[in-house]
C-alpha cells in the first residue's frame, strides 16, 4: 500500500525523525492561512501516489501568503500522471545547504533490508545508481541482528565528511530502520535529507510503501489508505478478500489463483481478445466470494462475457459451483457465462451447475475460445 508524503511524515515524527513544520489541506484559502501562521515562505506540495511531482509542477515555492493561495488553487486543479490532486501539503520553506539521500528497501535477492545512502540527494536515486554508482553506499542489514549503531555511523560518514553531521545522519538512519521494521514497510525513503543553515538534518520529503501482508497488525496505518486514489471496484473486492485489478477489455475473468488468473488474461489476449480484469477469488473460496466477484464483473458495462476458470486445489470446485448458481439466481446477469472446472470435487460441481443449465468444460483453452466467440 502506498501512503502520502504527509502521512509518511506523520510516521517519521512518531519515531523522532526531524521534519519541517507542515499541515495538509484541500483548500487554497486554508493554504493561505497556514502561510500566515508560519510567518515565512512555504512550499505547497501535491499529495498524489506518483513520483516526479516536482517536474510536473506539483511542488511550488510561495514567498507570500497570496502566492500560497494561487499556487494551491492551481495545484488542486491538476492531474499528475492521470491522478487528480485532492490534497496539498503546506510546509515551511527551509534554507538548504546540502541535499543527501537515505533509503531502506526490501531486497528480494538478498532477502534482507538494504540501506542505501548517497551524498547526491534530491534527484531520482535510480538515476544516481546508473550515472554515478560510486556515490551510493549500500548495506545489507542482518535481519536477526538488526541495524547496529556502528553500521549506521559508517553509512553516515559516507554521506558527510563532517563528523557531527555524520552522527546526526546515523541517528536518522537508525530511526528510519525502526520505521521500516515497525511499520512493516517495503520501502522507507528520505529524498532529500537536507542540512539547514543551523547545521541540522531535516527530512524534507518522505516516502513509505507498506507491505500489504503486514497491515493486519497496524490498524492505525490501514487508516492511511486513500480511498480516493483507489478504484471503487478494487476496494469492494478487497473487502470480500478478492484480488481484483481493472483492465480495459470486455472479457470478464473470474479465476482461482493469481498465476492462473494471469495466464487466463494472457490466453484471452493470445487468442485476440481483451481481458476486462484480473480477478483471483483466492484459496478456500466460499460461495459468497463468488457472488461478490460476479457482481463486480457485471458492474462494468463493457463486459460482454463472464469466463470462470477454476482449477480446484484448496479451492473446491463444488464451492465455486454453488457460488455461481447463487449468483445467477440473485444477480440475473444478462451476459453469457462460460465455465471451466477441473480438480478437487469437480464431479459434484458439474452436477450443481446442471441445475441452472450451465455446462462446464475441462480445458482452459476451449473455455477461452468459447468465451471469445460469445463475446464477439
Amino acid at each position, binding site marked *: 500500500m502506498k501512503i502520502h508524503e504527509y502521512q509518511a511524515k506523520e510516521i517519521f515524527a512518531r519515531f523522532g525523525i526531524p521534519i519541517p513544520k507542515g499541515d495538509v489541506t484541500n483548500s487554497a484559502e486554508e493554504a493561505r492561512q497556514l502561510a500566515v501562521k508560519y510567518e515565512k515562505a512555504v512550499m505547497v506540495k501535491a499529495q498524489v501516489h506518483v513520483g516526479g511531482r516536482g517536474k510536473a509542477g506539483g511542488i511550488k515555492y510561495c514567498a507570500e501568503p497570496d502566492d500560497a493561495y494561487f499556487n494551491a488553487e492551481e495545484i488542486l486543479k491538476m492531474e499528475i500522471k492521470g491522478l487528480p490532486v485532492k490534497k496539498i501539503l503546506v510546509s515551511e520553506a527551509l534554507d538548504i545547504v546540502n541535499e543527501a539521500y537515505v533509503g531502506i528497501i*526490501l531486497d*528480494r*535477492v538478498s*532477502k*534482507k*533490508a538494504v540501506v542505501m545512502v548517497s551524498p547526491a540527494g534530491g534527484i531520482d536515486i*535510480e538515476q544516481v545508481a546508473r550515472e554515478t554508482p560510486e556515490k551510493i553506499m549500500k548495506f545489507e542489514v*542482518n*535481519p*536477526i541482528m538488526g541495524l547496529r549503531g556502528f553500521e549506521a555511523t559508517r553509512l553516515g560518514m559516507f554521506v558527510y565528511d563532517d563528523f557531527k553531521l555524520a552522527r546526526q545522519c546515523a541517528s536518522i538512519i537508525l530511526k528510519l530502520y525502526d520505521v521500516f*521494521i515497525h511499520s*512493516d514497510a*517495503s520501502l522507507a525513503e528520505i529524498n532529500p535529507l537536507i542540512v539547514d543553515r543551523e547545521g541540522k538534518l531535516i527530512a524534507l520529503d518522505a516516502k513509505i510503501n507498506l*507491505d*500489504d*501482508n*503486514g497491515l*493486519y*497488525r497496524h490498524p492505525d496505518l490501514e487508516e492511511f489508505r486513500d480511498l480516493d486514489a483507489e478504484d471503487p471496484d478494487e476496494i469492494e473486492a478487497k473487502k470480500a478478500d478478492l*484480488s481484483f*485489478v481493472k*483492465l480495459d477489455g470486455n472479457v470478464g475473468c473470474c*479465476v*482461482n*489463483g*493469481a*498465476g*492462473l*488468473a*494471469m*495466464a487466463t*488474461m*494472457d*490466453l*484471452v*489476449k*493470445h487468442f485476440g481478445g481483451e*481481458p476486462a480484469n*484480473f480477478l*483471483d477469488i*483466492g*484459496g*478456500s473460496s466460499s460461495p459468497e466470494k463468488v457472488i461478490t466477484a460476479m457482481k463486480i464483473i457485471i458492474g462494468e458495462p463493457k463486459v460482454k462475457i463472464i469466463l470462470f476458470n477454476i*482449477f*480446484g*486445489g*484448496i*479451492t473446491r470446485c463444488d464451492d465455486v459451483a454453488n457460488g455461481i448458481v447463487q449468483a445467477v439466481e440473485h444477480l440475473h446477469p444478462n451476459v453469457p457465462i462460460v465455465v471451466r472446472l*477441473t*480438480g*478437487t470435487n469437480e464431479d459434484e460441481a458439474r452436477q450443481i451447475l446442471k441445475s441452472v443449465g450451465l455446462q462446464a468444460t475441462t480445458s*482452459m*483453452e476451449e473455455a477461452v475460445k468459447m468465451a471469445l466467440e460469445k463475446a464477439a
Partner: protein
Amino acid sequence: MAIFADNKTRVIVQGITGRDGAFHTRQMVKYGTKIVGGVTPGKGGTKLDDIPVFDSMKEAVKATRANTSIIYVPPAFAVDAIYEAADAGIKLIVCITEGIPANDMMKIYHFLKHRGIRLIGPNCPGIISPGLTKVGIMPAQIHKKGKIGVVSRSGTLTYEVVYNLTLAGFGQSTCIGIGGDQIIGTNFIDCLEAFENDPGTEAVVMIGEIGGSDEEMAAEFIDKKMKKPVVGFIAGRTAPPGKRMGHAGAIISGSSGLAGDKIAALNSVGVPVADIPSQLPILLKEKLEAVREKAAHKKAKKKAAKKKTVKKVIKKAKKTAKKVVKKTKKTTKKKATKKTAKKKVAVKKKQKIILKRK
C-alpha cells in the same frame, strides 16, 4: 526418484483440526502420504480419524519421529508455527499459509538457512512426488509418476501445466510450488540444482511470473550449471505495471519484473518459453528428442572414435614399451654406478675417521 520429499517423508500437520487442515490431511492420507500426527494447541490427546493430535510440535516429533511438517494456520500464527517446527527438529517445512509479512520472512529465511532447514513456501501449494508422497494441497489425480521435474511460483497454474503434461504422457518426478511471495524459503535455483542432481529427473518445466528477478537468475544458473533440458512458461504478459497481481511478489515495479525480460533471459540460454500452457508438452518433447539425438550422435561418434583410438593406443603402447625398456636398462646401469661410487666415498670417509682417531 524424487527431490526433497519421498516415501521416507513423515509428516506432521500444523493446524490439523481447521477446515482446510482437516480436509487436506484426509486427501494426503488417501494419497498414501505418511501423516504421523497433527498439532493444534489445546486439542492434544484427541484424534483426527486415526491420526493423533498433539499440543506442541516438540511432543509430536518426539512421539512420531516426523521429519516434515505442513502448515495450514492463519498468517498471524504461521510465523510462530515455522519457528516451532524448526525448534522441534523438523528438516522440511511446507508452509501453505498466504499473507505472512515480508519482515518476518526475512528473519525466518536466514534463521532456517543457518540451521540447514528447508522451507517450501509460504503461499504455496506444497510438493508432490507422484507415487511416493504428497505434502500439499494439489489435486492428486492430475499427477502421474514419471521423469519430469516441475517448479513453479504459482499454485493453480502449476495444476494447469501438470494436467497438460500428464495428458501428453509426461509423468513427473517431483512438482514443487515455491510460492508467490516476495521472500520464499526455496527458490528456482535450489530446485533446479536438486533436479539436475536427481537421477530420476530427465527434464524440468519451470513456471515463472512477473515481479522480481528470480527467473533471470535461474536462467544464469541453467546456462552455467545445468545439463538437463529446461522449458519454461511465464505468466503476466498482459499485467499492467505497478499493480500487485494477487501474489505479493507478482508486481512490475518501474521497469523491473517484466514478463518480456524474463522470457528473453530464458530464451538467451536456450530455454524455450511457451506462449500458452498447452504448448509446454510440445516444447518438452522437442527438447527431449533433441537431447536424445545428441546423445545418440555422441555415442556413435564415441564408438567410431574408440575403434580408431584402440588401434592407435596399442601401437603407441608397443613403441613406448620398447623405449621404456631401453631407458630402464640405461638408468639402472647409471644408478648402480652412482650407488657404488657413493659407497666407495663413504668407506674412504670412515677410513679417514679411524686414521684420525689413531
